[in-house]
């Protein structure tokens, strides 16, 4: 495991070095990009668009703009999307014994594939550890990272990532065995806590325990499976990660009922898909693929009624969403039916949530703040126009 990882990191480094071999197509796409910017400006000649239009031709921006459009071209030529997931978190991304992927993160990948190809099955999933995920994205091994990754300032800047809308608002929690009698963080003095290496969770744990002056022993492990193994064999007294992750991992423990998740939220963990810097068009595609799922839920468009609504709807917003009216898809460089394809093939956000985290699933998590904005949640799609 370790050796292959060293290999993959090195390969990624080499790939990073070689990735400028694509200079030739980049030159070509620059032209495409410029037209796209002009199109955008022409489509919305409002006040905020003006500075953007003047900034675009400026020299320093050129280097960043250069790669724009390259990802879509690469993905289309390849014929499938390559999506980085965890593969170990039921409800978010999990491989079953038949090798089939399921989960919220997985469905986000499928939605992007549906938007690009009109077919949600044209995705290749790559299982990545927390350690591998960023290098894999930076070096171009994967097109989208949809791996319950927390959005933070440092990742958004120094790590060269762009975060698409949050698909799950989470917080960090702590799981302990019921029999331990631990009810609050203070009870964890001198105890060992399992945490995954290289995560925001690891940093929050150190912060939270430091502020409370609780002397604890961390055990940093590679994967969620390692953490669960250590926790189950009582090598650790507690296991900390995002609350959704704890609920998910609890479902694969031998006796899920013997474990409780403490009533503390140690941090904000907004989880969402990410793409690499430098390709604004691709960023837009991923962003609006997610927004389309939010909007579909809001307008009551489901995978069941989308076919019928496309022909019969009188609602202008729904018409624009489904590509009946306006050239919404074209503005993204996609087919106008991109949102229709997403809803048809994958479902709206509510359907996706219920399928993976709904009350009938083993990983049931109440919708809570992950409801739509008009139902007391935080999920909100900007207008599609």
């Amino acid at each position, binding site marked *: *495991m*370790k*050796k292959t*990882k*060293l290999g993959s*990191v*090195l390969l*990624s*480094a*080499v790939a*990073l*070095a*070689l*990735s*400028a*071999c694509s200079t030739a197509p980049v030159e070509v796409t620059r032209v495409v990009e410029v037209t796209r910017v002009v199109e955008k400006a022409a489509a919305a000649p409002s006040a905020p668009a003006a500075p953007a239009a003047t900034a675009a031709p400026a020299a320093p921006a050129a*280097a*960043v703009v*250069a*790669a724009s459009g390259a990802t879509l071209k690469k993905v289309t030529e390849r014929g499938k999307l390559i999506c980085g997931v965890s593969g170990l978190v039921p409800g978010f991304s999990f491989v079953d014994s038949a090798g089939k992927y399921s989960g919220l993160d997985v469905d986000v990948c499928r939605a992007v594939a549906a938007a690009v190809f009109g077919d949600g099955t044209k995705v290749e999933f790559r299982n990545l550890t*927390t*350690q591998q995920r*960023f*290098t894999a994205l*930076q070096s171009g091994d994967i097109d989208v990272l949809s791996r319950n990754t927390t959005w933070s300032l*440092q*990742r958004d*800047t*120094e*790590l*060269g990532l762009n975060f698409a809308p949050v698909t799950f608002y989470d917080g960090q929690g702590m799981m302990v065995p019921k029999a331990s009698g631990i009810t609050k963080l203070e009870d964890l003095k*001198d*105890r*060992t806590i399992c945490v995954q*290496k*290289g*995560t925001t969770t*690891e*940093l929050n*744990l*150190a*912060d939270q*325990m*430091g502020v409370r002056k609780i002397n604890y*022993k*961390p*055990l*940093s*492990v*590679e994967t969620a499976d*390692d953490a669960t*193994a*250590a926790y189950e*064999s*009582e*090598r650790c*007294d507690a296991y900390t990660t995002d609350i959704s992750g704890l609920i998910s991992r609890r479902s694969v423990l031998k006796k899920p009922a013997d474990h409780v998740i403490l009533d503390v939220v140690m941090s904000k963990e907004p989880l969402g898909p990410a793409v*690499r*810097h*430098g390709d604004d068009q691709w960023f837009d595609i991923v962003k609006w693929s997610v927004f389309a799922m939010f909007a579909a839920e809001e307008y009551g468009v489901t995978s069941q009624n989308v076919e019928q609504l496309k022909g019969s709807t009188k609602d202008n917003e729904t018409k624009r969403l489904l590509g009946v009216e306006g050239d919404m898809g074209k503005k993204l460089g996609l087919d106008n039916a991109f949102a229709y394809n997403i809803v048809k093939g994958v479902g709206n956000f509510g359907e996706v949530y219920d399928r993976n985290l709904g009350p009938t699933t083993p990983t049931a998590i109440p919708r809570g703040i992950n409801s739509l904005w008009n139902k007391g949640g935080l999920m909100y799609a900007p207008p599609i126009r």
Partner: protein
Amino acid sequence: MSDTKKTRIPIWRDERAYAVLAQVAFVVVVIAAGVFLFGNLLSALRRQNIPIGFDFLPTRAGFDISDSFLEYTASSNYLQAFQVGLVNTLVVASVGIVLASVFGLITGLAGLTHNFIISRLARVYTEIMRNVPLLVFLVFWYRGIVFNLPKISEALSIGPILVSNRGVAIPWLLEGALSLPVVRGRIFDGGFVLSPELFAILSGLVIYTAAFIGEVIRAGVQAIPRGQFEAARALGFTGMQSIRLIVLPQALRVIIPPLTSQYLNLTKNSSLAAAVGYPDLWSISTVIINQTGRAVEMIAVVMGIYLTTSLLTSLFMNWYNNKVRLIER
């Protein structure tokens, strides 16, 4: 008579010139490829707005480390975290080399005895270890054995040593007095505590490498003609004396070069510590890479350090090899 004036072969027909030219061309190609790749790397990083350099080292690391021989807290910086990893690796490597040599010597000699049970046991052990991949063995050893040691509340005491799945506590000199470990709540108090992870990687590497060292020693001893041993016995040496004074010093000449390889293997294999959760140099470096995104810099430094450690080990062993080799007079 033909003209005796010596004519020089024209340079374009001189094979030697081509040989030199080919080598120069090769070096130029290698350097150019290096420059090209490095340039591409820089431009690729710039395109994604990812900074490059070592300026991140003095900033706050923010994560805790489970095992440390140095002063380290979450407010220490990345450089200090890196040093913790370096020291952890050096501890595992140096203690591992010493212990593996001792157990390897025992295994090697056990394989040579005429006692049927002992020599068979040594063979079985050697064959198992030589034919199981190290990573598989380490994961088995850590998850299968160490995790299943008694819980700390029921810690097993072997003399003054306490063994549990929270670690192994051994008596240790603390502030000039011998401190015996005891269990207090959920942790050990007093003595020196090897965490399960340190214990797993250290014992795992020692058990694994000792099998190989045993083979090296057995081969070295068997390379010495029987007559040497028999002559020693004829002169009145005891069995142990003949081995210690006659056979081993000669066998060392055969043993040292392959033994050096085993020492290097052990040092490099210590990077598998991450598989058992021990924060060695490589493990901590991957955390730093993940928290800062500085993969290129960290990989370069880590490779440099492993290279330096291995070269220093080789240098020492070569010096030692020169010392023990047959000096012809």
